[in-house]
């Protein structure tokens, strides 16, 4: 994805977040005061931060949009910061990132239901596969060893209640 498109999306998300923050904090019905007769209330600084974030994000958005439009007019080829000649393709990288996120969330969910050693070893095995390893024996051995080490460290030594 073009970096300016990423910036446009990010700045839009930040503007929405900032607006939501300003509206939600005020939705409690209490007054925000920046007066010299009353002290700051609980909502004053969050409102100021929200407004600042809205302003800064809007400037960021405007700058990114201007760059995007001027690049388009000059017919610049799309540049991605991930383009390297000897690295995995962007599609592979994005797929790996997406799968990593999904597997990580699944790991956390399963920790509550499945025994720690089992789910951790499984997680390691799956992640080795996601990251491109294909030697099943090596993956299985490392996954079991890693799971055992984590189990020993966090359950027995650190006594983590998991």
């Amino acid at each position, binding site marked *: 994805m073009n*970096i300016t498109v*990423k*910036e446009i999306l*990010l700045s839009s998300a*930040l503007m929405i977040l*900032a607006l939501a*923050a300003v509206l*939600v*904090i005020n939705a*409690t019905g209490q007054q925000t005061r920046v007066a*010299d007769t009353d*002290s*700051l*209330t*609980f909502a004053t*600084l*969050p409102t100021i*931060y929200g407004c*600042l*974030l809205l302003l*800064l*994000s809007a*400037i*960021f958005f405007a*700058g990114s949009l201007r760059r995007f439009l001027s690049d388009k007019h000059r017919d610049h080829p799309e540049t991605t*910061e*991930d383009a*390297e000649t*000897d*690295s*995995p393709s962007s599609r592979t*990288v994005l797929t*790996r*990132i997406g799968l*990593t*996120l999904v597997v*990580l*969330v699944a*790991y*956390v969910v399963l*920790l*509550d239901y499945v025994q720690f050693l089992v789910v*951790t070893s499984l*997680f*390691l095995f799956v*992640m*080795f596969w996601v*990251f*491109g*390893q294909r030697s099943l024996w090596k993956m299985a051995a*490392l996954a079991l060893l*890693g799971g055992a080490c*984590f189990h020993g*460290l*966090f359950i027995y030594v*650190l*006594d*983590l*209640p*998991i």
Partner: protein
Amino acid sequence: MFAGLIDGFASVLEPLNLVLLFAGTAGGILVGALPGLSSPMAIIVLLPLTYSMDALPALLTMIGVYVGTKLGGSYPAILLRTPGTPAAACTALDGFPMAQRGEAGLALGYATLGSTFGGIFGWVMAVTCVPLLASVAVKSSNADIALIGIVGLTLVSAFVRASMLRGLIGVVLGLLIATVGLDPIQSTERFTFGFYTLMEGIPFAAALVGFFGIAVVFSDIKMIGQRSSLVVKELNLALPTFRDLAKRWQCIVIGGLYGTGIGAIPGVGAEASTWIAYATARNRSKNPEAFGTGIPEGVLAPEATNNANTGGTMVPMLTLGIPGDGSTAIMLGAMILHGLQPGVTLMQSNGHIVNAILAGLLVATLFMFLIGWSCIRYFIVVLQQDRSWLFPFILVFAALGAYSSMNSFFPVYVAIFFGVVGFFFESCGIPVVTVVLGIILGPIIEQNIRIALALSDNDWTTFVATWPRQVLVVVIVGLLGWEMFKAFQGRSMNEINTKGDVS
């Protein structure tokens, strides 16, 4: 001052602390040697392991990692032309050509000695400045502390590697995130949406794990599978003779001064200081054209700067509670998690911890030299390993680290969320260290502003009532104004060039 420092050494030389410091330093060199891994990531992975420790052993382990990564980053820079840490990028300019000429061992020797002497220089400066600054800082009032916090955030925004706009966005977002939870004065809920888990605010450790652990793994996934042909035969360190080193004393002094001075400025980090020191050493050299062709001076200066930085970052961290870089930001978080209150009163309330940290810095530097000198061939083996074996372990450490901060799964989801946010931020050029600093300093600033106003009967002029406060306000306004002026000037030049007007 010396009595306190001697007590600090006595604490550090206890067997457990010594072992942890040694292990941390060795681990730090290992992590630094792996391109893509960083000191903040290594420290954040360590964080859950330190929950059961006392504060001092935990912090000493982190100090060891912090110091070790500075040297470790030079190994791939010299051997692969790929810096292990961003701060070691400069070392590759002369280190790699030396390695290509068959002088890899000598280049590594210069890097090791440069790091050691730079680290000692930085330590001397830290030991001198910390007690002095702490004695001034403890006299600060609430208004002073609030302004110092704002100055810290402004400095970060102004000097961070991205534009000031991006820096400010990160800082303000961090400040906003820090308001989640109960208001510090009135205990009113803010942004909790009825969830009691949010009443204590966003779990700080989880945010750190997300930003410096999970986000970095996401960013470095593109490096999986990349390998370079590197030195296969055994490699030994070749220390230069004392005479050869003494001839190049200026490089060490330049590196030490820049590393300490720039390291003390929050947010700048070691990267900028190494380049500035390199350029200065080159400009002062009788043969500036030789820089970049593989000369020892080109390795000595940046490596000395790199490790002198560790002393520089300690000064604002221990005296003002303002971290100098990402690693010290996590160490500050670790202090809070272990019940210490960083800030202007740290020296007063926990002076023995401060002195022990300073003592640990020197001992870690000496350990770094010994380990680097004797074990370098083992660290080189690490460079050959694919990250696909390493990243899953880091993710497990990150998940469990977040879990152990509250013994619940909520912080883990928070860490994953901030991992995604951090990944997008870094890919758009917004450094996550700005967000982290906003999260750390936000509550301090808000609490002190509101107390200062309450004590002055809501008189806002209290923030310019004394000359130190006026200076701080001038610094804030001046920095913001200067950056806006530079941005405007840069844009005007671009418009002139675009329109083809030449004056």
